[in-house]
């Protein structure tokens, strides 16, 4: 039988792991996508709307 403090500790540990996992995933995903966009940009590939100064129209 675990002590009550152990259950409290386990709960906060799981919460920390889940929140840290979410934050790392969102930050990592964002960085990877930014890298891809920069690589495409460096290769001279741009969105058509970015070339036309008028706006985002399709």
């Amino acid at each position, binding site marked *: 039988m*675990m002590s*009550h*403090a152990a*259950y*409290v500790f*386990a*709960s*906060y540990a*799981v*919460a920390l792991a*889940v*929140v840290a*996992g*979410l*934050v790392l*995933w*969102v*930050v990592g*995903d*964002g960085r990877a*996508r*930014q890298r*891809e*966009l920069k690589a*495409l940009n460096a290769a001279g*590939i*741009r*969105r058509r*709307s970015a070339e036309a*100064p008028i*706006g*985002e129209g399709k």
Partner: protein
Amino acid sequence: MSENSLAIRKFSDLANPTRFLALADRVLPWLAALTVLFFAAGLWLSFTTEGDYQQGETVRIMYVHVPSAWLSMMCYTVMAISALGTLVWRHPLADVSAKAAAPIGASFTFLALVTGSLWGKPMWGTWWVWDARLTSVFVLFLMYLGLMALNRAMEDPARSARVSAVLVLVGFVNIPIIKFSVEWWNTLHQPASVMRLGGPTIDPEFLWPLMIMAIAFTLLFFTLHIAAMRNEIWRRRVTSLRRQVARNAGRESLAP
């Protein structure tokens, strides 16, 4: 495009993804800072306030369990509103919002289930019972996983958007079932003690850390959600740019 034209004046201006990205860049640092601040205060209160005379120290589990359970339902509500945005108003960011929210909702539902079990073992004497509240939240968790699988299964976001929007709306029936399950059925889970007619019934000693933690979790959700939406917009841009490259390559190889 001039800086001025990127300013957001109406809610409908958010429909422009470029404007949304500009707003996200401006808002995210503040939201993140506010989240950290509220978590610092919430965690401080969680560990400095008194234990309960019956639950003892385990009452502190409630300060993460209740906010994550609240988020699990709020996140689904955000997804249901986004689904309406996709189907009714054809808002271009609605699908991005629903898709970005699903993994976040699944994570907080998982957290609510695990912390609930960790409280249930010392207090109820069991990790799990198949009562109405626990089962309906478990079903919510499965629905999040199903929606994530569906979003990944279909290549074209425009097609998967409508299908998953319909599914999200059908699944929304589960939210009132979760909320009122403790009143409609005889459950081991206690009935509502914070959001109820007639005001909260819990002692201010526990209400304060609970409220601050609930605000901290809600701020965390919106920070993560906006950042995940930004990632999703970037992901779609990368996909469309790569498609554009492939099309151009095809055209060049066909030319004599």
